[in-house]
């Protein structure tokens, strides 16, 4: 019976990249939404 570790590593590697990538996407999106926006100066009339 072949060891087949390559398939195991490929499956877990792809899962790790996908899950970590989604976590990072959520973290970036949350940071962008909670970042305080710079106050815009009211244009003088």
């Amino acid at each position, binding site marked *: 019976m072949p060891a087949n570790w390559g398939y195991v590593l490929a499956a877990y590697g792809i899962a790790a990249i996908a899950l970590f990538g*989604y976590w990072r996407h*959520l973290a970036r999106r949350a940071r962008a939404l909670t970042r305080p926006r710079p106050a815009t100066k009211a244009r003088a009339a």
Partner: protein
Amino acid sequence: MTRALGWLTALGLLVGLAAGFLYAPREAVQGNVQRIMYLHVPSVLTAYLAFGLVLLGSIAYLATRRPGWDRLAGSAGEIGVLFTGLTIVSGSIWGKPTWGTWWTWDARLTSTAVLFCVYVGYLLLRSLIDDPDARGRYAAVVGILGAVNIPIVHFSVKWWRALHQPSTILGPEPSPIDPAIGLALFVNWMAFTLLFAYFLSRRMEIARLEEQT
């Protein structure tokens, strides 16, 4: 609260990896490639949970029109697509050394691919409608209709002659799995459920913030 859940999830995933690679024995027939099941099975069970919550959120939104239910449905749908994708990819990688092919149009595989496409369509629909109430209503209809596919996926191995093995965990008969392998599967299932809860909590918070901007 979410941060604590995140750390608990990280711990759960580490314990799950240890259970799958150090505690569970090498399977007698399939060898090491069976360890992909500690990823594949929890992924599909998490996807079922996610799409079940899409159904719940969709029905509740149509009944109450409270935006929180739509946030739940939309967030769970996105995470469900992620875990369904992982299910398909990990199953395909397992299938190559076990069945000799990456893909076959077997009933379980085909119905899972249809499930994936339905919920990708659900997310696409949500992204195309700007009005929150119209988006919630249309998406709820798709979310309810899409859930019909969940029992089809699960029972496809009983209803049709399939290459995919019958259910060994959620089946009617007592599980024939070796106790150590069963425990490793259970630990990983719990870890993935924690991961789902963590992702859902963060995604719903983002949806709430998006509505405010």
